[in-house]
């Protein structure tokens, strides 16, 4: 049986990060999905920090990941607030409606 090691966790974090990026850029339907993808972006980095903290065997990275979780919550709050303001104007949160500004 193969042991789960450092490399696996790094790949997990990186793949989640890429999934978050894909979720932001490929997503054509919903702004809310973009917000969720942004959360995935931040939390995947949090996984990476914890992994590296374990690898170096000290606590610093774990503390950083706690800070990341806190900040991600603040960011989600701001994002949802912006989305509510947008919804009041457009009565929709579709990403096609976020295209008025062009030039």
């Amino acid at each position, binding site marked *: 049986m193969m042991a789960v090691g450092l490399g696996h966790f*790094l790949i997990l*974090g990186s793949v989640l*990060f890429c999934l*978050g*990026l894909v979720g*932001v850029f490929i997503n054509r339907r919903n*702004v809310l999905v*973009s917000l969720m993808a*942004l959360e995935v*972006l*931040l939390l*995947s*980095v949090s996984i*990476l*920090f914890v*992994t*590296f903290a374990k*690898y*170096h065997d*000290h606590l*610093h*990275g774990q*503390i*950083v990941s706690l*800070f*990341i979780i806190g*900040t991600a919550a*603040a*960011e989600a709050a*701001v*994002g949802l*607030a*912006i*989305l509510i*303001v*947008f919804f*009041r*104007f*457009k009565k929709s949160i579709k990403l096609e409606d*976020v295209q*008025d*500004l*062009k*030039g």
Partner: protein
Amino acid sequence: MIFNLLTILPELSLVLASIFMLIVGVFKEKKQKNAKPVSRAFSLGIYIAFGIFFFAYFYEIWVSHKFHGFSFDGLIASDRMTVIGKVLVLIAASLWIGLKTNSTHAAVLRAGIKVYEYPILSLMVLVGAFLTIASNDFLILFLALELQALPLYIMITSRHESQHSSEAGIKYFIFGSIATAFVLFGAAFLYGYAGTTNFSPFANLLFFTSESVYENMWLDIGFLFLMMGLMIKLAVFPFHSWSFDVYEGSANVQVAFLITVPKISIVFVLIRLMYGPFAQLVPMIQPYILWLCVASIVWGAVGAIKQQNIRRLLAYASVHNIGFILLPISIGSFEGLQISIEYLTVYTLSLIGFFIGVTSLHKDGMNIDKISDLRGLWEHYPKIAILMTICLFSFAGIPPLAGFWVKLHVFRELIKAGMIWPTIIIAFASIVAVFYYLVVIRNIFFEKSESKLSKDTIRFDILMIIGSILALYPLYQESLLRIIEYSLYTV
């Protein structure tokens, strides 16, 4: 001393001021809030207290040099470069904070920003920008970038009558968050490489490492993503597309804030990173940064030609000028750093001058939106027209003005470093850029307007000072360069 509060005195005073203003705001009636944000005496008190605190900070770090180095266990840097960065940010921000004593208040109201929290949010952005400049640790860098960005997202969305504002807010939010995530991803891998998030150990680690630094995958990935994140925030060429929509959807007063304060702070972080900890890695990424800068100079010049909206035009101009600011950094010499900060100073001053003019004007009760809205300025307000033209000519790089000398310095540095082709390309690109500044000037002077332009009270004194600074640049450019050089010796 490890915990020296003096090194974060400006930030502390700003945080206290914003908390006090929030408390005052809670006890205010709703009607009163819209009428005036804070009383004149109160905002004057804030200015004076902040001035004293900032002067104490300035004196201790710059003049007496007593607390030089790092504080808070190496988290906060307190050298002369942070001082010069904070002074620049302060110059850029002080006019746009939107307190009661501010003459841009009328422009703020006309833009539909009627929330009480607006000046408080701008104070928080200022705290974030200060901490970003002073950060010496990836954790602090990340938190400061977020502190700088989150209030900006809210500020942009806070124009309740404009639907463009919320769209700009969503776009700025998404791209800003991606940029922060990139910075964090890079920081994670650099932490994996070094086992520390502090900047200072990296310098020794990279200098004394036995293996080639180019072959360590964690280091390369980390540094690459860190740079990409910062470049998204700066809107350098391949990552620039968000800036146009965001700037167009915001009000003029907001753009004046948005185009200067976050960018200055991030340029200073880049300088700190590339000349402190990662100096060994700079040769690796230098050609990429060089050609990205050249591309953004060309793109900012060519793309702006057909723009009608004044903020969109300035967004292209900022892509163009960010290229000029990062080019000397990418050369990798000490003079390059000085010239980059010099260019940043002159660019910020020209922008402020131009925006003071633009925000004080309005047409039919609306803010200036299109370039054609400036028609007839020369007939009605010749003094403003002349001073705004000085700022625009300084952007364009017309000889006696400051913009010409700093561009000349950039070219000189490039040629000294033997980069002939980039010099030729950006010289042609800046000729193209002159064209669209001239379009604005043609609208100001030679076109007749159908409806009348009117103006609010304008800070004419400040506009005059900026105009004379830009016009008399050769008189003091040596001393400015010497100040910058002096500040950089200690990094």
